[in-house]
């Protein structure tokens, strides 16, 4: 099931000479190459007036808007609103998806009771449910939290089921021959062996949570980065829209990087921690 939900690799992030375009020694500079090139093209195009500034404002205009939003505290307010919703929604999602995933991974027979419902829900986009969620939970925080829970539940759940159920039977046999009880086998073999898959699910879920949140904030919110975009659209402030988009991208990349670092600490045996790879 979770085989479909794979973590994406970043081109050029491997070690030198392992089929990557740029050597590893480029490091952060290598990663900034394309953004810098895009910035230069953007700047030159804007300076030469190649496109209408309303369609794509100049870098200087976007910078001015960003400074103004930051100085007034408005940007921080919207960032915190979005981040808080993600923290709530993602935590709730993990608290439900992980135990259920473990349960179905350990007892696959229970799947026949849960799978039809879960398969139905998995194929309904969370944003499609938003009008109903607003009816049920109101226009406040609960409906947006529910959207995040629905968006992040399945990556976490499916990867947990996958990790637990794919635990190498041969390792479990080792536990049996060494006299481990069923509980010990679960805690000391099944759970650690599923950790890489669970972390992949958490990382994917966190990425999905940003996407779902912005969608929800575009429709029904009075704060948050999605609301900032919605409001800027109404006021024809494309410079503010670009600021919000850039902030979302940076925040998403930062949270993903944080998760990568956490995974490197928790699963050092996967090699990432020792070799510096990221694939």
């Amino acid at each position, binding site marked *: 099931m979770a085989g479909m939900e794979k973590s994406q690799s970043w081109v050029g992030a491997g070690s030198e000479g392992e089929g990557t375009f740029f050597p590893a020694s480029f490091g952060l500079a290598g990663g900034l190459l394309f953004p810098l090139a895009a910035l230069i093209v953007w700047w030159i195009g804007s300076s030469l007036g190649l496109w209408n500034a309303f369609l794509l404002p100049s870098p200087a205009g976007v910078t001015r808007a960003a400074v103004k939003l930051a100085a007034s505290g408005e940007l921080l307010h919207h960032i915190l609103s979005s981040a808080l919703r993600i923290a709530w929604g993602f935590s709730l999602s993990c608290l439900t998806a992980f135990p259920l995933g473990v349960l179905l991974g350990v007892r696959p027979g229970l799947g026949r009771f849960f799978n039809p419902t879960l398969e139905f829900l998995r194929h309904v986009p969370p944003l499609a449910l938003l009008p109903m969620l607003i009816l049920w939970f109101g226009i406040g925080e609960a409906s947006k939290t529910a959207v995040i829970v629905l968006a992040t539940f399945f990556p976490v759940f499916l990867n947990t089921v996958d990790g637990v159920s794919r635990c190498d039977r041969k390792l479990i046999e080792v536990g049996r*021959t060494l006299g481990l009880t069923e509980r010990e086998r679960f805690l000391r073999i099944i759970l650690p062996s599923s950790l890489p898959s669970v972390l992949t699910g958490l990382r994917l879920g966190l990425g999905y949570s940003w996407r779902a949140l912005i969608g929800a904030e575009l429709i029904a919110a009075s704060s948050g980065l999605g609301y900032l975009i919605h409001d800027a659209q109404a006021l024809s402030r494309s410079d503010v829209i670009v600021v919000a988009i850039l902030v979302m991208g940076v925040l998403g990349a930062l949270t993903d990087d944080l998760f990568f670092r956490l995974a490197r600490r928790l699963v050092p*045996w996967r090699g990432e921690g020792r070799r510096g790879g990221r694939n």
Partner: protein
Amino acid sequence: MAGGIRLQGITKRYPLAEGEIRALDGLSLFFPKGSFTVVLGRSGSGKTTLLRLLAGLEEPTEGRILFSEDVRRGGRCGDGVGIVFQEPRLMPWLTVEDNVAFALKGRLEDAEIAARTTSILALLGMETFRSAYPDQLSGGMAQRVALGRTLAFDPEVILMDEPLGALDYFTRRRLQGEIAGLHRETGKTFLLVTHDVEEALALGDRVVVLEAGRVTDCFCIPFDRPRETGCPEFLPLRRRVLESIAGEQCLTGGH
């Protein structure tokens, strides 16, 4: 019962889509305490099934396995019998040291675990790799750690399912020497299954030939270890064992 493990009329059948396969067929054997028995046979002769039954991983369809009191402590699976599998089966998330100590956590005091792990790593020459992860080890090293994990568990009987099968010739020879040394030093009951005649003759006090789930021959090896199986006094014995497994026709190319 004299100390050891006795098999009485053991039969193991596996159901198939149509019919069944008989992996062991009325097997009766005795493994005396402190002995080193090698079960030799071709693929599909029932060697691994025999070990899995002895390790408690499967139950016989018919027959009984009797453990003397001093072998099967407490009657719980793993209490008195340890097994080294064909592949190392190390926990990839644990270091060499933690893999060796795997069965001891929660059963012994930390200080005792550390002391036992250190002595086993020294015995196997793996002290310098104690912090390494399994994917950083060669096949021979990983198999040594697997052996260390079983030794740390301190079972009275050590079962080995072709543990050297995947290793190169030189590593295999070195580990054969180490296994023989461990048997001598620990005095435990060793039971090794293999399809390698040289390995069987190099290690066993006794070589039991298994064919289609039945014992077809049994040879006592009257030589002290370490043995050089290529020397002249081994040749007649080697030929008899090979004949027992492959048949005289096979040895002479069918002529």
